[in-house]
């Protein structure tokens, strides 16, 4: 069907006759709409407009709306406009759409890009202050709940902690071992490759030992756990929040912090130092094997050298940091989880936010620790 066939208009003295024809349905709207707009644009000066629907074969909501748009463009100017010869079965539809879109559609003005960018930065700063406050407040909640547990040890959820220890601790061992082994190996290889230019290969052992035990071990494990368990905590709490399970706990007189969060945090605080220890040992093994195969010094030499350069303090520095990292990861994960609202979108957003913020804070915290330990000569 030719496009013109949908709409024709004839001027009869001071009367305009518009004749829609054919199928005025959604599938054809792409062709009909420009025709409607063209007729409206022309707008000859008339006293009466008749929309003659005789030729109409089919009409649906979209078609009816386009006819209404046609009618309205004259009717709004106070010109007598009528739809005539419309099949009775379409009458209801036409009168239905006549009630819609009465208010002028409000198009929101675009914000100038500069202001938009500034607004973003401002919001970001304000949000990070909010985040900090939320985490501190939440830490307070957790402390209160922990205090209650200490007073009533029977409320201590041992089973739950064991369960979480299994998921965040025991099951994470293989991946932690593997990844730290590789990191240790890479550090040693890079060290040997570059130190050999100065004939300083033996110092590779110093570097690997100190780096792994003080910094890399705990950092890699923390980052891994933030991605692995932090996200799981956020998603779990978030979907519980969405299903109103947390509200259900609260109305039954339970404290969600005590039941859900404390066991998670406790498990994390126990598991992370253990994983850090396992991870660091694995990294040392990785480093040792590379030193042996690539650098050519025997395992006994490697171990002897380690014994010389590594003090108990080096080891302690790494281990002391671990539970604090765990606390930060757990707090961020739980705070973000409880911020989830109704939608799946929100769950995704907060899970991502949880991991990103936890990793960021772990690194910031590591920086503070570095300053602290330097301050006390450790």
């Amino acid at each position, binding site marked *: 069907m030719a496009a013109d066939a949908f709409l024709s208009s004839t001027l009869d003295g001071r009367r305009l006759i518009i004749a829609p024809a054919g199928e005025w*349905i*959604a599938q054809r709207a792409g062709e009909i709409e420009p025709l409607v707009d063209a007729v409206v644009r022309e707008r000859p000066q008339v006293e009466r407009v008749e929309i003659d629907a005789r030729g109409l074969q089919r009409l*649906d909501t979209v078609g009816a709306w386009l006819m209404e748009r046609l009618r309205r463009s004259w009717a709004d100017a106070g010109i007598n406009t009528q739809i005539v010869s419309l099949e009775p079965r379409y009458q209801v539809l036409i009168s*239905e759409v006549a*009630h819609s879109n009465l208010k002028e*559609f409000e198009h929101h003005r675009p914000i100038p890009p500069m202001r938009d960018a500034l607004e973003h930065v401002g919001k970001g700063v304000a949000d990070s202050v909010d985040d900090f406050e939320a985490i501190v407040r939440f830490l307070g909640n957790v402390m209160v709940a922990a205090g209650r547990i200490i007073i009533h040890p029977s409320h201590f959820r041992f089973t739950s902690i064991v369960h979480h220890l299994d998921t965040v601790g025991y099951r994470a061992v293989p991946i932690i071992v593997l990844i730290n082994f590789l990191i240790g190996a890479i550090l040693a290889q890079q060290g040997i490759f570059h130190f050999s230019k100065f004939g300083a290969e033996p110092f590779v052992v110093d570097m690997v030992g100190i780096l792994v035990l003080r910094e890399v071990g705990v950092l890699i494990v923390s980052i891994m756990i933030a991605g692995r368990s932090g996200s799981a905590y956020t998603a779990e709490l978030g979907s519980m929040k969405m299903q109103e399970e947390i509200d259900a706990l609260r109305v039954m007189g339970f404290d969600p912090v005590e039941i859900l969060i404390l066991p998670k945090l406790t498990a994390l605080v126990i598991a992370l130092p253990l994983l850090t220890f396992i991870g660091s040992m694995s990294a040392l093994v990785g480093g040792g094997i590379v030193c042996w195969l690539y650098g050519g010094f025997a395992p006994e030499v490697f171990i002897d050298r380690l014994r010389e350069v590594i003090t108990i303090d080096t080891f302690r520095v790494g281990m002391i940091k671990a539970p604090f990292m765990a606390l930060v990861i757990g707090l961020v994960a739980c705070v973000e989880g409880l911020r989830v609202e*109704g*939608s*799946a979108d929100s769950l995704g957003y907060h899970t991502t936010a949880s991991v990103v913020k936890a990793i960021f804070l772990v690194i910031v915290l590591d920086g503070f620790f570095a300053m602290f330990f330097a301050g006390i000569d450790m």
Partner: protein
Amino acid sequence: MAEIENIISVRDLVVAFNGYDVLKGLSLDVKRGEILGFVGASGGGKSVLLRTIIGLLHKKHGSISVFGQNLDELDEDARQALERRWGVLFQQGALFSSLTVRENIQFPMREYLNLSKRLMDEIALAKLEMVGLTADVCKKMPSELSGGMIKRAALARSLALDPEIVFLDEPTSGLDPISAGEFDDLIMALSETLGLTVYMVTHDLDSLHTVCDRVAALADGRVIAQGPIEAMLAADHPWLKAYFHGKRARNVAAGRRSKH
């Protein structure tokens, strides 16, 4: 287009889960333009039938024809064209939670039709107003809506492509009696305005009395009775008796008598 009397026709349908037959040779016809209420015990397979007709579940055997076309014989394109002619209102609304209400309604239009932005905005608003919502709902996210508003917005989305059939899965469940009554009126008005055929799974005795032209009852995996509500009330199958003459049913009936 030839008018087909039976817009949906299900024959000897068997649907099984884990080797257990939920529907055991069910047959059902839905006539063009009618509002059919489908009742049955919870867990009895009402939703299974609905989901099998709209193609979400596989059947073991039997045939389903919609618009006179056997669903098994259609190729992918024909099937998609046919699916555009029906709309489904899921029990929880199933609005896409990451889109605003307007975007939800426009979603099928955007995919299937070639409409200008302005026309889509106007049509979305027209649909919203048809289901009794106001323009300010447009920009809201589904999570900001109340239960009744979600159902209405979801109905608007199911009507986006001007379907000929709408499937409603417990449309009034979870609504207060006033909203449920309004929703019933809305369904009646829409079916009249748009010439819709409505297939409604429901437990709401009030809707069965007010909106449904015909009621079909499911028990033991079969349709045990169908006909106007009066016929249901007169039937003497024990399950139907319990359903339509139980305590709650009597209250509804008493309420109706005192109103008239």
